[in-house]
């Protein structure tokens, strides 16, 4: 046995001891690392959970909704409360030319002539029918922005001031609109108008500021006969879904492929 061998032999327990210490240190370092890493790892998992909880409790998540309105023509009595409520809620000028929603009266006489009138948008009710001869049929048709899924007004806006939200409402950015009126020309339903003071395009918003609070639009709130129904388009258990199951549904100007989200029940063929 050489001295060197002896040294080695002498040192071998020490080396083994060193290795054991190293392993212990290694494991303890691993534990420490795990302790440090655990909150980070858990945090990565937890953040989406917390966000989901927030959106459930208080926050409003537009992606969870897709709104539409149903209108039962056979229930409308033409009282004009919806028009007045809309003007009050949305600060629409009280003249007879600017409306987010309005009510038209169709009177079809015995001579098959269709007479449509909407005095002051129907806001003050309707005068007695002034037709000569008999009336074949007559009814009221409330109208408003159809919040089209494929909206021409959004397509033509040159600056991106009118847009479709995730929940299906078509809105106008007042501060960004340049007042070029393209959208007013493009809307086939005549639902847009230029605000005479702000000089920006204005329209029905489905009362978006009420939707985010869980309320229905003002016109739906005040409608005394339930002619207006509001709710989610794609869910099964909402008033609108029930309305659409139990009625034959039509939309205005379907040939234009604008895919309106205002659905009419008992709509007469004469309505344009």
């Amino acid at each position, binding site marked *: 046995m050489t001295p060197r061998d002896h040294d080695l032999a002498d040192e071998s327990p020490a080396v083994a001891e060193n290795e054991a210490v190293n392993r212990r240190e290694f494991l303890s370092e691993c534990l420490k690392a795990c302790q440090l890493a655990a909150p980070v790892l858990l945090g990565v998992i937890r953040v989406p959970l917390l966000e989901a909880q927030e959106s459930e409790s208080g926050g409003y998540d537009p992606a969870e909704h897709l709104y539409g309105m149903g209108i039962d023509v*056979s*229930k*409308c*009595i*033409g*009282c*004009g*409360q919806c028009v007045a*409520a809309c003007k*009050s*809620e*949305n600060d629409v000028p009280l003249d007879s030319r600017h409306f987010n929603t309005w009510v038209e*009266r*169709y*009177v079809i006489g015995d001579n098959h002539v269709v007479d449509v009138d909407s005095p002051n948008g129907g806001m*003050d*009710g*309707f005068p*007695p*029918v002034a037709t000569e001869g008999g*009336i074949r049929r*007559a*009814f*009221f048709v409330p109208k408003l922005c159809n919040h089209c899924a494929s909206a021409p007004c959004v397509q033509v806006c040159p600056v*991106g*001031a*009118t*847009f*479709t*939200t*995730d929940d299906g409402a078509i*809105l106008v*950015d*007042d*501060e*960004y609109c340049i007042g070029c009126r393209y959208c007013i020309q493009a809307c086939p339903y005549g639902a847009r108008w230029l605000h005479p003071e702000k000089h920006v395009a204005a329209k029905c*918003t489905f*009362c*978006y*500021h*009420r939707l*985010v*609070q869980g*309320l*229905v639009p*003002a016109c739906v*709130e*005040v*409608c*005394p*006969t*339930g002619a207006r129904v509001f709710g989610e388009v794609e869910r099964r258990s909402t008033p609108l879904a029930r309305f659409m199951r139990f009625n034959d549904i039509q939309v205005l100007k379907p040939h234009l492929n604008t895919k309106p989200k205002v659905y009419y029940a008992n709509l007469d063929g004469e309505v344009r």
Partner: protein
Amino acid sequence: MARLPSLRGPKVPQQVPRLVAVFALAAIALIAARYFLVPASFGEKGHYRAAALDTIVAREKQYAGQQECALCHSAIMDARLAGNHQGVACESCHGPAAAHAANPVEAKPSVPREREFCPRCHAYNPARPTGFPQIDPVAHNPLAPCVSCHDPHQPEPPVTPESCSACHRQIVSQKAVSHHATLLCTTCHRAPDGHKTSPRTVRPGKPSDRNFCGSCHSADASSPQQIPRINLRTHNPRYVCWQCHYPHYPETS
């Protein structure tokens, strides 16, 4: 600038570096213009300014919603939900009431008692749906406010006991559109049970003197304010009331 001479090799035409410079300047100008002109939140959610949503959401509501009304006015709410106006929200008649909900003492919603209000829905119009209750405002109790006969929170029409209308249909129909519509037959007539089986022998009672009408219509009567008043002493004292006025359809003048 030091790199430009190295680009001016024989193979690179002179206009190329100039063009590169022009395009670079244009790109810088475009980026700068976008930085200053495109709003900060544009494109966050789509081809629009995401901050516009906050402005729109921040609008103040005017209509509180009937759930809010029910928090305080639960008794009226329950009454309404039991009647024919169960589908008519509070603010449909009383107007926007979000201000009242926020400050119940200072801001008061409107209370429409005038006769012109109810015909907005209930005046006859051929375009209204069949079966919807409608009246002719000219002929239907002229001048009387609707609320004097109909409770707007439970607007069931006034009823006459069927036991009288079975025989006295004409009188009942006439009374139903008169100012006396809410009065029962038995308010003025005593009707003993025997009258139904032996109408000729058991006669109902009738008012016999001016003081009976005067209990509502004399100047010092303690009846509701809107009932027309006369001075019993000076108002044609030699006649009884029904010699000039028909009690089942009393005219006002």
